[in-house]
């Protein structure tokens, strides 16, 4: 293993933590808490690619920008895709 390979266990833990993020985002959407949605999107935008989840990084970018625009309909669709991604990973 090179010094910068990501152990599979770390990748699995990463995805596990995103389940919590998804739950928090769903609650935030119900409460119109766009700040939390934008924060979660921003954080995942930064770390998903690092952990080798490029598609999740793209989703997170959309999550952040839709949260900043307070686009509830789009946010709902993005969270559905977020859930599907986590399930299949």
């Amino acid at each position: 293993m090179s010094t910068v390979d990501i152990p599979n266990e770390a990748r699995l833990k990463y995805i596990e933590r995103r389940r919590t993020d998804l739950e928090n985002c769903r609650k935030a959407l119900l409460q119109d808490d766009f700040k939390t949605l934008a924060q979660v999107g921003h954080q995942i935008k930064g770390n998903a690619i690092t952990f080798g989840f490029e598609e999740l990084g793209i989703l997170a970018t959309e999550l952040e920008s839709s949260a900043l625009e307070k686009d509830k309909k789009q946010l709902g669709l993005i969270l559905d895709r977020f859930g599907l991604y986590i399930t299949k990973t």
Partner: protein
Amino acid sequence: MITTTYNVNSAMMNLPFNQFNQKTMKPVKNFKKTKKILMIEDDQDMIAIITKSLKMKYFCSIDVAQDPFEAMNMMTEKFYDLIILDWQLPGLNGTETLVQAEKGLKLEPSLPIQWDRVKVPVVIFSSSKKNECLPRRTKHFDYVGFVSKAQPLHDIVDALGEYIHDEKSFRYQSA
């Protein structure tokens, strides 16, 4: 610091880990001082993977502060060779963090003496775009660069490594 036990003429000596060639287990002659890095970051995933990778590749010592106030406390107790600064922290952004740290350093009577001698290089480490992270000039900190979080791990480690080894010396554009 991680130490390795080395047997010299039956005398057991404890010396820092990176003074040794890991294959031959002989001391490295041109030993460089272990770089002390402060990483100011609140993302647990990034903390775990980045600190482990940097320590393994560059044999540096890394302290982590997860919020601006913890960072301020650590800076008043210890001098660092490099600060890796997340731009969006709970409560304050990157520039506000270091401006507040400046205030804390000025008021601290038992500050490590190095703080008066040299500026600490700061690398901004963020998911935001570079042009969204404009730091303010301060007395004790010198912004030397920007590394995006949104890239593969090996690219991040290589980019940060250039700052750890002082290979990049250009100045970051300040506000």
